[in-house]
């Protein structure tokens, strides 16, 4: 009896501790979320507010029959996964390097965080000028050292633009991965490594058996979070290419923006958002299941 009472009391503390966060979320997030879901079941165009009415799942049916939507969904997936994977790997390598005893570590860490410190609109304009085929430093330098004969059309050719935007997103994201992984790694006590080294473990095995398990939790969380952020990201690509050229870099957030604001079709746009939400939920569930099962092995 006493045990059960303790448990409830303990849980009460837990409930209390979540109250500030819950209040904010209830105030600011819940209404938009439910409003969005309910809007997706309506036909609602901002230009004709008087024609608003309930139409059930029609918006969703339209979406899945829309070839363009499916194609855009595909590219968004591709772009997100590549960005997350490259950011994670690069962040991991950097974190491993910086975890060693190294002079000047602090400076490197600060420098690596700088991409995050610049306003996106300014960063994108700078990238635009750097990638320019005539006056951009990147092309000028590459041609000077003879690596290429003619300028690379980073933003003008669709096939290349697809990767250019991945690069600029990666540029923005790897610092996050690096810092998070580094913070997690730094809590691994040094003597673990030292005793492993004494036992003759090389770099790779100490990484595999000491580092990896300890950062697994944080890795899973940060990759899922990053997947969600990048999937939903609007600013970076829109400021750089506007979804072009010729819709080569057209992602779901941009499509949703056009549909909701430019076409005024709130019903369809919120349906898109809900579909995105479902996709991300499925991905998250699968991912976390996989992570958990690996842990249990």
């Amino acid at each position, binding site marked *: 009896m006493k045990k059960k009472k303790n448990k409830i009391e303990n849980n009460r503390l837990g409930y209390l501790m979540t109250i*500030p966060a819950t209040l904010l979320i209830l105030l600011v997030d819940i209404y938009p979320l439910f*409003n969005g879901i309910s809007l997706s079941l309506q036909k609602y165009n901002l230009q004709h507010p008087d024609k608003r009415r309930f139409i059930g799942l029609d918006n969703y049916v339209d979406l899945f029959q829309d070839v363009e939507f499916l194609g855009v969904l595909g590219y968004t997936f591709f772009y997100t996964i590549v960005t997350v994977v490259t950011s994670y790997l690069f962040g991991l390598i950097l974190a491993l390097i910086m975890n060693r005893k190294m002079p000047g570590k602090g400076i490197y860490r600060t420098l690596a965080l700088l991409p*995050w410190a*610049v306003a996106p609109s300014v960063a994108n304009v700078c990238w635009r000028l750097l990638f320019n085929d005539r006056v951009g430093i990147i092309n000028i330098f590459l041609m000077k050292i003879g690596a290429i004969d003619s300028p690379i059309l980073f933003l003008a050719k669709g096939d290349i633009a697809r990767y250019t935007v991945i690069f600029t997103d990666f540029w923005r994201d790897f610092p996050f991965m690096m810092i998070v992984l580094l913070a*997690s790694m730094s809590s691994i006590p040094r003597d673990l490594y030292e005793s492993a080294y004494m036992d003759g473990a090389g770099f790779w095995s100490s990484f595999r058996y000491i580092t990896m398990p300890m950062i697994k939790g944080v890795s899973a969380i940060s990759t899922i*979070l990053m997947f969600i952020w990048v999937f*939903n990201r609007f600013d970076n690509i829109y400021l750089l290419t506007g979804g072009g050229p010729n819709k080569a870099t057209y992602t779901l957030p941009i499509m949703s923006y056009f549909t909701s604001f430019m076409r005024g079709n709130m019903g369809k746009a919120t349906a898109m958002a809900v579909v995105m939400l479902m996709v991300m939920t499925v991905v998250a569930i699968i991912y976390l299941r996989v992570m958990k099962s690996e842990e249990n092995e």
Partner: protein
Amino acid sequence: MKSKNTQKNIINIVIYVIFAILLFLLLLPLISMFGTAIKTHDAALMTTSLFPEKWADLSLENFGYVMIKMKFGKNLLNSAIVSIVVTLACIFCAAPAGYAISRFKGPYFKFYSVLLLLLQMFPIMLMLMPQYLIFTKLHITNSLLSIIISYTTGNLAFSIWLLKGFYDSIPMELEQAAMVDGCTKFRAFLTVVFPLTLPGIATVSVFTMLNAWNEYTVASVFLKKDAIMTMTLGLQKFVQQNGADWPSLMAAACIATVPAIVFVIFSQKYLIEGMTAGAVKG
């Protein structure tokens, strides 16, 4: 032994060099931003080099224009206020919540973490109009309070999740030891566990602070009064419909990165100072 040391040194040097090159590449936008800002106004518009080509082209006039004539400092101040308050508020809400989700079992807590994830997934563009409606009803639009609330909530989800991860890696034995000594659970949290998650707190603060510092869309919709415009809105004063005053914009952007960088340097200390190795026993 000696050859192994030199081998290690060589590896270190190679790593350093690769690192330096990489960082230069990655910092190109910032370098070009800075290079444009230190040119004279005319040279910045007409030359295409990374840095001023002639001594005559080097000038700080853009910075002067931005800070003195355009009173950019006011925008910086507003952003600073918002960022600091948001960061503190976020930690205040996220630290206990993350702990609760990490330590307590039950359907409520499981559902909570799922809900947090879900909330992240809804695109901000579609949240804009309903959120604006809410704040209009509360009569706080066109005030810094509105974006403070919006930003804090926006950063809550990932902060709680991240901190949960950090809490998970701290063994429960520590609190239990403290409680055996007579602490309440909450006190144990505050005095034992919370300090150990300083790297996590520092991580969350850095990103929350930088997110709030650089956010544009929500601020542009919520804030219209000149006196409360944040830094990102202030940057837009240099932008016209089909073009911009690039030199001034770059100068303003340079100035805007300074507080962010200062904060990053400041928090470095806490990012890495991990748990003392001796705390973990057994």
